[in-house]
């Protein structure tokens, strides 16, 4: 039985080089995208900084103070660390977009993969002849 085998074109060295570079360029772009969009990776809530904070104002008890000092910190140097807080506001629109993007990505991938997979199976095992197999 003759099978219709797909014969891919042979890619030259320059084309292979370009293809590897395209993937790399996309990776760097996605690494830089959050910065280009005006934010950093971690999204923190804005905090107020005091001129001369004390351990008490930073809500550090005696034991905590002692450990901070052993780590080489003063209330001034500890303040930006202690007061940095995450912002966990859930915006329905951005959450909805995120869910849609992730779900859309997987749906697209599974549908397209299934189409390609049928080609692979038909070439590997031959055309399907009945429903029983």
């Amino acid at each position, binding site marked *: 039985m003759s099978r219709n085998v797909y014969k891919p074109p042979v890619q030259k060295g320059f084309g292979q080089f370009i293809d590897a570079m395209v993937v790399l360029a996309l990776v760097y772009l996605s690494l830089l995208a959050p910065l280009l969009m005006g934010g950093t990776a971690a999204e923190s809530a804005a905090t107020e900084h005091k001129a001369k904070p004390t351990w008490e104002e930073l809500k550090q008890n005696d034991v905590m103070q002692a450990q901070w000092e052993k780590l080489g910190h003063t209330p001034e140097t500890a303040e930006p660390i202690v007061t940095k807080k*995450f912002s966990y506001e859930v915006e329905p629109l951005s959450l909805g977009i995120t869910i849609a993007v992730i779900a859309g990505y997987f749906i697209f991938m599974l549908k397209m993969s299934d189409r390609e997979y049928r080609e692979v199976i038909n070439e590997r095992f031959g055309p399907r002849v009945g429903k029983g197999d």
Partner: protein
Amino acid sequence: MGTAATAGQQEKISLLKVLGPVHVWALGVGIVLVGEYMGWNFSVAKGGAYGSLIACWVIGLLYTCVAMIDSEVTSTVAAAGGQYTQAKHIIGPLMAFNVGLYLVMAYTMLEAADALVVGDLLKAVAAQYGADLDPRPFVVLTIAFLAWLNYRGVFMTLTVNFVITAFAFIAILVLFFNASGLVDGQSVLLHRDLLVDLPYGWIGVLASLQFGMWYYLGIEGTCQAAEEVRSAGRSIPMGTMGGMMTLLIAASLTWYICTGIIPWEYLGQATTPLYDAARLMGSVELEVMLFIGTMFAAIASANGCINDASRAWFSMSRDRYMPHWFGAVHPRYRTPYRSILFLIPIAVSFAFTGLLDQVITFSILSGLLGYTFMSFNIVRFRRLWPLGSIERGYVHPYHPIPCIVLGVLCSATYFATYLGYGTSLLSIMAFYILVSIWFVVRRYPFVKRGEQFTMPWPRPKGY
């Protein structure tokens, strides 16, 4: 003609089958253990100390599901490329291409972060003695040395990993015994005064799942050794499940030590928390031991990452999913040497972007996308080839509970990443969407169809 024949012959040289369960353990734990030395503590910043502990165990459950599912599929699909090869045989080419990229990106970016830790730690220690050290040459040197080791052969690479990983694990145990007072009866742990309530409430606990992944990220890398183990059915499940047990112990001990010595706000942003804990204990011996432990953990992780990223890239190239030139095996050392060399400058450039948190998020999210794939991969695997229709090296119990739990926990972790890192999440998803379209339009025409299905299995049910 002579050259073409030689090239063809060269590509038929296979990888060596020399590894046992110990090497699989060393590969998996070696990649991950650095997560106890740095990175896990960012979960403390997102959800507080208790939030981090809950994340440690919840994500531990996620990874137990990953290890169970992976052990079954990998012991049956015993080929380099791990999950990429599984996806190719079970779901289809586009999924396989994405899974291969998840692996390459997760490991190459983790490797960059590991090398940065080596450089930063040396800089910090030098600063303690009044010296100003530029960490960058050490970052390059670490990656270059490990790449050379990988180039020369997998057996030596993973034997080195076993020794240094074992040392790093023992260092955690020694620190625990000393800190808890089990050695001299005097505990230095101050949980009563240092632990506070959940700073962000339960939403913070959920948010901390994101960095909770660092306790275990990369254990699934054991699958990359599938083509190089002597017995996949024995070595992969033993090495992977043994690795998970080691990590659950190490993660719990690490949390217990660090939260009992370091204030949570400091801990949440520390670069090397276990080393800091040893410093606070005031013992020079412990400090030296944890310094070496941190260095070894970071080096072992980078070493395993080079091994895994290069095999994933190699496997994709061998099938022409990526340029075929990278799919060559070294005629003498029998390693995927072109892929190893190609990824060196890329890892170095990631390390020097100055975007460490973005690099880490990329690594975590790539891993998470891979785990999401595993949850529906196992369902399809059992459906296309029901039990008894093909020989499986290992059958994991309680199916489909592990894949349902895995799917639910992956969804929760996406939400955790959205909390605080939503922009990064979208930009990384944009990358995978764009690169998928590029694959369909540009790369897939170069891929052979039937030839890429290499397993000796019958036709899948329903196709």
